[in-house]
């Protein structure tokens, strides 16, 4: 605290603190992480809001995401262009939502986005299959996958349209004991 830093202005830091669940120091550290991924692209001076984006390849190699089966989807759903490149704003946003202070509701919204692979605003069977394959590294047989997907739809689909809308998803996930621990 109190260290003179020139990366952000105080107003910027305050704004970031208002918009995220992070403290001042954490935001600076996030910038450090962002910077160290591509030191020659990311400037150390963010007071003028430079328009810098890092490609997905760099981001998903962060140790936090590296092992995550959904890393591409996570990055994609937080990137503004949907292609997976993240500006620093998106980057902070991503970590804010993934942080443990973020409320369930917010997480549910983004979780829905992440699991919705084809971005049609429904989690359909294809999405479920993809999720399952990523989760189990394709070690289940085709019949098992179909069975599980059918079971999931049967359990969570309240309106019987054969796919999960956000309401279904939210309803299901809000009861899960393990979601957000």
């Amino acid at each position, binding site marked *: *605290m109190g260290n003179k830093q020139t990366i952000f202005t105080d107003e910027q830091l305050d*704004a970031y*603190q*208002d*918009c995220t*669940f992070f*403290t*001042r*120091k954490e935001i600076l550290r996030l910038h450090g992480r962002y910077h160290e991924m591509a030191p020659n692209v990311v400037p150390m001076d963010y007071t003028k809001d430079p328009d810098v984006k890092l490609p997905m390849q760099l981001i998903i190699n962060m*140790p*936090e995401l*590296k*092992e*995550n*089966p*959904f890393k591409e989807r996570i990055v994609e759903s937080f990137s503004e262009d949907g292609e997976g490149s993240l500006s620093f704003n998106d980057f902070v*946003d991503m970590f*804010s939502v*993934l942080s443990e202070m*973020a*409320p369930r*509701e917010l997480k549910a*919204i983004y979780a829905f986005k992440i*699991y919705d692979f084809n*971005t*049609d*605003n*429904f989690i359909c069977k294809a999405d479920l299959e993809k*999720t*399952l394959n990523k*989760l*189990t*590294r394709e*070690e*289940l047989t085709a019949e*098992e996958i179909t*069975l*599980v997907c059918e*079971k*999931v739809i049967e*359990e*969570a689909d*309240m*309106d*019987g*349209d054969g796919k999960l809308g*956000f*309401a*279904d998803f*939210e*309803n*299901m*996930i*809000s*009861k*899960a*004991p*393990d*979601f957000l*621990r």
Partner: protein
Amino acid sequence: MATEIEAAGIEIDGQVESDTQSEEDEGKEKTSKKQPRRETVRASRLERKKPQRDKEDESKEEHNCPRQNRASRRKTHQKKNGDGKKAEVKERDKKASTKDQKNSENKEKKTNKKGKEGENKQKKGRKNSTSSESSNSFDEESLSEEELAMLMEQVEQRKKLISAMRNKPWRMVKKLSVLREAQAFVEKFEGALGKGKGKKLYAYKMMMAKKWVKFKRDFDNFKTQCIPWEMKIKEVESHFGSSVASYFIFLRWMYGVNLVLFGLIFGLVIIPEVLMGMPYGSMPRKTVPRAEQATAMDFSVLWDFEGYIKYSALFYGYYNNQRTIGWLKYRLPMAYFMVGISVFGYSLMVVIRSMARNANESTADGEDDNFIFSWKMFTSWDYLIGNPETADNKFASITTSFKESIVDEQESNKDENIHLRRFLRVLANILIICCLCGSGYLIYFVVKRSQTFSKMQNVGWYERNEVEIVMSLLGMFCPPLFETIAALENYHPRIGLKWQLGRIFALFLGNLYTFLLALMDDVNEKLDEEDVVKNITRWMLLGHHNSSMGNSSADTPPSLDPADVPRGPCWETTVGIEFVRLTVSDILVTYVTILVGDFIRACFVRFVNYCWCWDLEAGFPSYAEFDISGNVLGLVFNQGMIWMGSFYAPGLVGINVLRLLTSMYFQCWAVMSSNVPHERVFKASKSNNFYMGLLLLILFLSLLPVAYTIMSLPPSFDCGPFSGKKRMYEVIQETIELDFPLFIAKIFSYVANPGLIIPAILLMVLAIYYLNAVSEAYQRANAELKKKMQMQREEDKNKRNNKTNNNSMMQDLEDLLAPSTKIEIYPKQAEGKKIESPDQVIPFGKQGKAEVLNGSPMSGGRRAVLIPPPHLLVTRPPTPGIWAPYSYADKPWPGAHPLGLVPGRGRGHPCYSHAAR
């Protein structure tokens, strides 16, 4: 579509917003919101009046416009209710008409940002210059008041928005810009509120509120920095998943509790005694006896906590029974007693409080097994994992768990293994009970033997430490044995962990209580011995007096050297020493186990693997896993030991603080360097409360022996703060009699009367009974509600399944709404359905007819629910023309309810809403 979903998200958010708001904000609201709330009605009336007025009152409108625009924009973001939408529509109208003026005015505002004064002047100036209708001038005062109320409300809304900004699912760029706008607005108009004297006060209040927010933020920053070992624990968590981390979090919590206990004991007992009490060597209890003095400084003696350590402030015996010490007149015996009690009191309070908090936090109970597969699918990944090995294990465990549930699902009816499994479980339990009994007997045997050893002279090191060694060995080898046996049972690891914990708990508890019983025997022996010594001492002192009287005629007899006075065994110190020894040996065993069992093993496996016949890493020895259950229980039992021993050895807590501190670093290092993640990684959900429950149990169990000794054993006659009293608790009576006025003693004696205590206990029992009954009733109601929900769900599902095909479009549209609004707009939704159904039928038209002709009961039943009777179909041909009357007929409908809910409209008539856009 994308925006629709977003809107749904926002709606949900808008609902929870008030919950998630910071308390501070609510407080602020309380002070400032009272006024605006009352005037909201007026404000909305004003808003409704606007359209007519803005024709005639150009200047006023001009002034209001930017604010209102922003307000309505915000409203639509936040709530999207009818109000907002309507405002938006209006706004659109207005935008067109007053855009230029607004722009110019904005410029104007930018140039003179001077709060209210400037603004007022500007307003007045404008009023004069623009020569508005004179009819409005009389309205000015009231209007400005209303304006003010509106302004105030808007400012409040914006503040709310700022505080809830982080919960919005928007892109960061949008968040930042909205935030900036809102802040600018608040900044600008905050000063404009209030008039004259009130204004200053308001400004001051606002300033203070801002400062308070800033302070709070700084304080939060500071607080997060102050949480010790946060990074270390996070690191462990990322490598080993949350179950291992939960152990370290528990350890950290324990450390905090112990620090408080340490502060209590050191601050109120040890330091006063050292500073103000009689110095070392001034009296028998504070001096090493002559016979021991030669070896009192040897390391081997000190290691056994004999010699100088035994006669130090670390143990009970050192304390003097002087009623007050030092110039402060500090009542040390009283303080000693009270601290002994408050150690238990504080621990109980902390444990129960954190248990209650944990119970509150875990709102959703996992017993609801409606969503087995869904939960597995969407919530089984532990997002904290950042280590490839752990990730591999996690993938494997997820796969197996899926397979398990598939198998369960497929074979839920025919479970032929059930008998075998039941048999195995019973067998495992029998085996474990045998183990427990055996270990209990072993300890009893060893303790008995050690009593005979203690009477013998020159026994070896092994004989002296046999009890500790055997107990440690049991603690080391039984848990793995249990784990092996538990493999028979084939429980889910989370349940298995609890069983394992329970069993080891029973083992340790048995050991501990055997140990205590043996100790009690010892104490009783010591008490007998003490009587003898007491007589000897009396005679000896008498004899000494007589002899000195006879020899010299001095006034004061040359006092006997304190080291030579014969003394009793002081059983309290003995008990204290036992506990300290046990603790220390426990620490050593734990550390050596970690060093040998984890680190050396890891080194061996790692380096010898290059030249070995088989793969050591994958094969037999491999690396050790972190043993959560063993470590947690070790911690819990160690704490029980501390609680029990701290009354007789005040220094014990200090030792424990050191132990916890070192083991935090040591175990973190050991885990990171030489352990591998569990084969079946699982989440530690809610097991924290299980740990707490164990802790509470052990606290209660360690309270019992201490309470027993305090209440019913006589303290030693020549050592400790209570010497010379019949019972330890008499120190309270003494204090009350001597230090308090008479009437308090009287009151106390009344209160202590059994006639009062028994009814009090009865009352407490009744209260417990009542509360229990109430909570049971709640539980039952809860279960009932759950059942109802379940039934409702099934019903909904059935109903919907029946009409799925009929109106899939309806379903699509409905899905986009959040559940919260669904309930609100239900009646309208129904209306919408009725009106819309003819449209729906159109595409089905011919098929529908065919179906009716076929007389399919399914389709007929399906239709009966929704669509108008078939004659309508027949009489009116299904042409696009049918669109027109219905949609026109509807048009007045939203108009009739000016505050009608927008989503209802947008959903029911997609075409219409498109047209509007």
